[in-house]
């Protein structure tokens, strides 16, 4: 019994316990949303019934409830036909006022979608949007993982080369410029310095783009490009909101941490190379950035990469939630009609909380499915290494 409890609560480390835990989370959240939907639907049904009872009074042709005289006559008439029920009659008048108010101001009434809620048609519509959202999400996830790995690798190798940044090299070079003798030499150095400055500015611009929120980039290029396409959305999903740089930085951090570990020293002592110069006999070929396993032989980097990657896979679970946040921001902020997250915003506006819950559950399911996928992938990797 205690073993079963351990499996159910994730105290066991096995894949089956993790999957059970994910399934349990989905069930619990589904139940929570189910309760919310039920409550909202029940209230909506009650409201519908009340409103239809009250609508009869609003349909009276000779009564203008906006006119105080008509209202007064109506109130007196109620007193005549339903004597000794003044509280009920007052409540009725208040209910009529409330319905009139809602018909005037509530967007759900104004748009004509009032009180429909989570119908089958609506579900079908949302499922279609969800499939589209999922497609973009999967593309972004794969591109993000591959790009982050490559960028992280590049950052790691550059760090190990111990070269100063472009800006530092520019500052140092500028200081020494006045000590260069002939004009021609100064001109050569100045040209080199200009190139360095351009590289530094370029790097700064790239960083600025990578850290920009999606809506800033989208609005900046809106008049030149169509920002409502799926391709552009996927591009924004990868490049903006700082997701790419944070994920790459995470992999870079893992590589650095692994490079300080003892087994790297053992590998050096066994004669493996620890030089990180590009394209030298004992260094790292640039092509290895795209295929580490085949590209590098007899180098400690093989060890470092293997271990860092093994730890990077479960870290993807953290970034799934962050990535979904980014896509939600993109869809909502760019007002792309017919997209899932914009629809979520609209449903909140129209107070269709049951529909909103359904969409949120879909988003939650996406994150959970990613976690399940990552757990299965990590489990396969663990089996490869005898776990």
């Amino acid at each position, binding site marked *: 019994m205690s073993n079963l409890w351990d499996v159910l609560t994730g105290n066991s480390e096995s894949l089956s316990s993790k999957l059970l835990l994910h399934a349990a989370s989905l069930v619990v959240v589904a139940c929570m949303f189910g309760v919310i939907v039920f409550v909202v639907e029940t209230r909506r049904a009650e409201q519908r019934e009340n409103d239809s009872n009250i609508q009869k009074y609003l349909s009276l042709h000779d009564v203008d409830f906006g006119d105080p005289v008509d209202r007064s006559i109506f109130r007196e008439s109620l007193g005549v036909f339903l004597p000794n029920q003044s509280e009920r009659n007052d409540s009725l008048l208040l209910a009529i006022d409330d319905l009139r108010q809602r018909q005037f101001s509530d967007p759900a009434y104004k748009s004509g979608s009032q009180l429909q809620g989570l119908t089958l048609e609506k579900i079908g519509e949302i499922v279609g949007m969800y499939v589209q959202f999922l497609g973009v999400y999967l593309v972004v996830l794969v591109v993000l993982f591959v790009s982050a790995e490559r960028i992280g690798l590049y950052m790691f190798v550059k760090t190990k080369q111990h070269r100063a940044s472009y800006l530092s090299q520019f500052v140092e070079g500028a200081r020494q410029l006045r000590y260069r003798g002939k004009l021609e030499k100064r001109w050569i150095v100045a040209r080199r310095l200009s190139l360095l400055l351009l590289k530094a500015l370029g790097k700064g611009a790239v960083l600025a783009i990578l850290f920009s929120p999606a809506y800033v980039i989208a609005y900046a290029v809106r008049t030149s490009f169509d920002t409502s396409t799926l391709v552009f959305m996927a591009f924004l999903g990868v490049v903006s909101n700082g997701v790419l740089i944070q994920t790459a930085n995470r992999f870079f951090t893992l590589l650095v941490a692994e490079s300080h570990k003892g087994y790297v*020293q*053992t590998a050096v002592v066994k004669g493996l190379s620890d030089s990180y110069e590009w394209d030298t006999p004992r260094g790292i070929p640039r092509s290895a950035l795209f295929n580490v396993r085949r590209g590098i032989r007899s180098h400690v980097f093989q060890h470092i990469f293997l271990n860092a990657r093994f730890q990077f896979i479960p870290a993807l679970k953290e970034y799934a939630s962050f990535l979904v946040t980014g896509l939600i921001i993109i869809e909502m902020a760019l007002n792309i009609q017919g997209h899932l997250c914009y629809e979520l915003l609209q449903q909140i506006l129209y107070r269709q909380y049951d529909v909103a819950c359904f969409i949120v559950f879909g988003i939650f399911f996406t994150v959970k499915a990613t976690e399940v996928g990552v757990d299965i992938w990590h489990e396969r990797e663990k089996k490869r290494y005898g776990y």
Partner: protein
Amino acid sequence: MSDLRYDIHIASDERELVAIQDFRLAESSITVLFGESGIGKSLSALAIAGLLDRDQLDIRLNGREYRDYLRSVELADLRKNGFFVFQEPSSHLNPLMTLRSQLREGALTKVSDEEGIVRRLWRHSPSSHVNEILSVYPKPYRPSGGEKQRILAAMAFKKMSTTPASAKGALFIFDEPTGNLDNQLRDEFLDLLVENFRSRHCTVLLITHDYSMISRFTTSYADLAHKIYYKELGLERGRLQLREFLPSAYLGWVKAQKAHALAERGESTLMKLQPNVRIFGRALKVTRHPAGRKPEPLSMAKGSLVYLKAPSGVGKTTLVKIMMGLLQAEELSMVLEGVEYTQRTLRQVWSTHVWGRQMAMVFQHADEALNQNARVKDVFAGLPLKTPMNEAAITRTLSQLFDDELDREFLRKPVKYLSGGQKQRLNLLRSMVLDTDILILDEPLNGLDFQSSVKVLANVEDKLRRGKSVLVISHNEEIFDALTMPEDVYYLHEIT
């Protein structure tokens, strides 16, 4: 024969770590290097081998910047013909490669005598077990510390066997290579080392805290006496010096211990542990004989020094943690000062009655056991004493094991700035000051130099005289066999 000579300066951002002039190693000899833990032996050795991280440290070797040394011919020769066996085997093996593939990587790819070397180091295990070990990945299988250490040693011996005799740069550095090995395996290691040394005439630097190696070298390799040097790295007038260590100082002291019986032991039993204990699905039993079949309860009487022995990895530390209630066993029966403790005893009971009150324990790694970011005086904060210790009381306590190191600033010094030996002494004092009836010491002489070890043992002796009982786990068998009564030696076995 010439000497290899180094001037070594190593500093971090915050302070100087090593500053030694004239660090000498006799070529084609074995240098056994002693010294307190943290004094700079490993750092110096790593610097010489070109293995320190220049991003984090400021290093100069023989007056040169470290990056120049890393490009030197001298280092290239050392890397080509030498080897380094690291102190901490757990982190020095790649968790995602099998042990066999790590044994055959890089310069070790083509070595014919791998099987012979491995068989020698696993002489007492069946060959099926050896094959199994070599096929595993270090992380999930978790070979014992001793097994990992043997893998690293095997790598070194493989390299040694292919190094041409008297090759340039053939420097083999072994940093605490036998810390996790029992005496039998340690002797096997030394035999292999000496055999390779005789045939290759390489230079060997053997860093160790195991003074009993002196006995082994003296008795088994007397013909190599002119090729074995004993040195000690220590502080003299505030400066780090490499000085000669006289083997007779240790041998004489041990001999004196043999002749000296310890204090009267009382008959009153403080603690009795039933011999069968179960944890993590493993069954352990305690006996009085090394190959004993008959389980016997472990008793600790007043004034007794109990010595618990077992090969590395069996579970000595696990057993004492169970006795302390730090690990919950699946089966346990123990009577401590008249009260019974079993696997069902609540944690709250251990916390309220046992920890720091009836029993205390000193863990083997002072670096882990102490808060490195605390000050020396903070180490004594939070202890369950009748009155909290003020600075005067702390100074009096420290003076038991610290002499000329005690100055005004010592109490305010962060623990991380102490040497390994100082940390270990502080680690011991924190538990000793509680003056519990029972004290458990796990490798108490870890990281201590000879002088400090003598002081610690004197303190232990004092406790025994006052009627306290001490249980010891230690690989310093020569020392503790001399100090323990035969009836107080116990052996731990795993029941398979």
